[in-house]
């Protein structure tokens, strides 16, 4: 990456705003968007011809597993953020289930520093809710909030904060620093040994069923708790139609509840498991076509606030096994925007302003990330993603910048191409390659 802070002139990009799209030039200088308008010129600027490209505010992922420290064989902060940049992201939230767990100020600061050193996108650590993700004692949430990493999102992701009292206290406690609890909603008893969405496919394949109610019951409880204590709840990776309905109901009450959906839950169904290929094994599991349709609708109407990747890299041997032995999870950073185009834009459910809202503005707001998720306008930090939606559909290659190759989209033809990503005015990606 060239760390220069050159002045850039992006010519003729389609800038999305409330009024739709208008072709405009974007002048970037000193890390900021200096001007937007037609016919801009700057003799010293490097010029990027963005004819036909959409200028989105840099994408923000609320849910990324970078695996460092502890599982550097699967991903590192460096490789994960390279993948993020190629996917158009300028900020990612690094989940806490590392080894050691990110449950102290020391660990979150380490991850934050690794992100700064890598420089491909901003890495905002997520702090664990409970010590060691064990679900019994609160981690030092205040210390993580006050650390250099400035943690605002707390999650035991991978595990559910099951204890109702502990969940209530966590929600209450983080109010002091405007934090949010991001819950991995999964009733443990209802999902003991569970492998795949409970339904026709799991019954046929003889894989232990993972009922929708195991997710929905926890979400319902947590919405009620959030309302009771007036605290912010964020629901991770919503995967069922019923979950969307509960969140819609909670929002209709004005309760402070937000939610995310993953690209894979917007596109894939449990029928893909018929070959027992664990590349389709994920937590929560792939659901039915009816769930996919309902999740798309909920994302379109704003019930679900944002798309979050739940990028979960795993080494090859963790997936080249029997289904029930395999690890849960899929990579997603490099394909997220293309999947969203296919699932939401090409279907007419969302326009590009909507994509900017669901993949940048709202996740940044939920994570209280300053500088990110701002509209593309003069005076804002220059976090930008230039995307070509008309790029011919190309088959996804499993070999990307991520250290792992467990993408369920390998071989699938997806439209679009991330052409360039700018982080604070500096390109991390140019012409679809790391700059």
């Amino acid at each position, binding site marked *: 990456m060239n760390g220069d802070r050159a002045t850039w002139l992006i010519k003729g990009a389609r800038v999305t705003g409330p009024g739709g799209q208008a072709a405009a030039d974007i002048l970037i200088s000193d890390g900021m968007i200096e001007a937007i308008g037609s016919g801009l010129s700057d003799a010293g600027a490097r010029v990027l011809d963005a004819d036909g490209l959409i200028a989105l505010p840099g994408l923000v992922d609320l849910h990324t597993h970078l695996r460092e420290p502890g599982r550097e064989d699967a991903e590192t902060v460096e490789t994960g953020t390279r993948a993020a940049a190629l996917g158009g992201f300028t900020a990612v939230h690094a989940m806490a289930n590392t080894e050691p767990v990110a449950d102290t100020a020391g660990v979150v600061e380490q991850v934050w520093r690794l992100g700064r050193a890598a420089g491909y996108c901003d890495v905002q650590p997520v702090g664990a809710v409970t010590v060691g993700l064990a679900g019994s004692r609160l981690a030092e949430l205040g210390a993580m909030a006050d650390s250099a990493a400035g943690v605002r999102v707390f999650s035991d992701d991978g595990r559910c904060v099951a204890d109702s009292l502990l969940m209530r206290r966590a929600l209450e406690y983080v109010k002091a620093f405007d934090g949010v609890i991001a819950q991995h909603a999964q009733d443990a008893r209802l999902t003991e040994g569970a492998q795949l969405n409970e339904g026709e496919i*799991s019954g046929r394949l*003889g894989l232990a069923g993972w009922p929708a109610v195991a997710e929905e019951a926890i979400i319902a409880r947590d919405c009620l708790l959030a309302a009771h204590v007036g605290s912010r709840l964020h629901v991770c990776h919503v995967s069922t139609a019923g979950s969307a309905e509960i969140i819609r109901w909670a929002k209709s009450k004005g309760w402070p509840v937000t939610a995310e959906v993953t690209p894979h839950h917007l596109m894939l169904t449990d029928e893909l498991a018929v070959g*027992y290929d664990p590349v389709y094994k994920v937590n929560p599991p792939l659901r039915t076509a009816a769930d996919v349709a309902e999740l798309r609708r909920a994302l379109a109407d704003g019930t679900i606030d944002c798309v979050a990747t739940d990028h979960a890299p795993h080494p090859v041997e963790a997936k*080249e096994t029997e289904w029930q032995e395999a690890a849960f999870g899929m990579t997603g950073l490099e394909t997220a925007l293309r999947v969203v185009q296919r699932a939401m834009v090409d279907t007419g459910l969302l326009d590009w302003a909507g994509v900017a809202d669901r993949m940048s503005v709202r996740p940044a707001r939920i994570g209280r990330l300053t500088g990110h998720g701002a509209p593309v306008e003069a005076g804002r930090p220059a976090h930008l993603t230039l995307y070509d939606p008309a790029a011919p559909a190309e088959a996804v290659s499993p070999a990307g910048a991520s250290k792992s190759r467990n993408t369920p989209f390998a071989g699938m033809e997806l439209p679009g191409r991330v052409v360039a990503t700018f982080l604070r005015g500096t390109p991390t990606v140019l012409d679809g390659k790391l700059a």
Partner: protein
Amino acid sequence: MKRHLISAADLSRGDALLILDTAEELASLADRPIKKLPTLRGRTVVNLFFEDSTRTRISFEAAAKRLSADVINFSAKGSSVAKGESLKDTALTLEAMGADAVVIRHGASGAAHRLAGWVRGSVVNAGDGTHEHPTQALLDAFTIRRRLKGAATRGAGLDGIRVTIVGDVLHSRVARSNVLLLSTLGAEVTLAAPPTLLPLAVDTWPCAVSYDLDSELPKSDVVMMLRVQQERMNAAYFPSVREYSRRYGLDTARMARLPEHAIVMHPGPMNRGVEIAADVADSARSTIVEQVANGVTTRMAVLYLLLGGTEFPEVAQ
């Protein structure tokens, strides 16, 4: 026929009848003083057993040996698998040794499916987790046809035969394979079980469902009892073994409700006194011992057809 036998769904009606008819031909061998055929001479069949299952393993072993195949028994216990070797590495090892067929028994659903992606030889699923056990269904179909239609039944299906499968369908690979195969062959299958032991979407299966065994018995030509694991009550599938036995066990009183010609089947191993009373298991209606004998001939037919052995004119005569 496909190259592998992983699911009963892999078999068309024609495939299934070909296997049953071939098994009938091979069965005539069992009455001869020399039971061995040279058809698979020089071929290697590996029995890859990750679960203890002596009865299934020796059944396949006897089948392969009667066809003159070389048999390698690979048991996971005490092997490299116990030291953490992956299924894939085991598969590559077998591949390097030149296995023409791998018979796999494994505790994970889909293991046979995965294995088929890693080896060139034919894969025969001898039971994978709670998924399927297609050769059990074939030997059951063979047994039903012989008992209810007689030996001279080549080409005949099971059309109109009413089969009631009783017990832990949710965790039963035997039930899954039998529902698929028996319905392919034209039988009318009914599952009788407590609701907790039926898959949630069982209404999408090609069979009927009942919670009341007693009402099904008078209209059953075949009643197939499934083994119920007593530990299931710990996960609240049923309150107690005694209650299960009272409601879904086949005792002499229930057996008396069956039509005169009806038969009682069990894939084994049995829990006498739980799903089946000793008097029922040992009664004239019971086909349990026959099922074991038929297992060998049916598996011979499967290995023969999958490996495309040479003709056996001495049988055809």
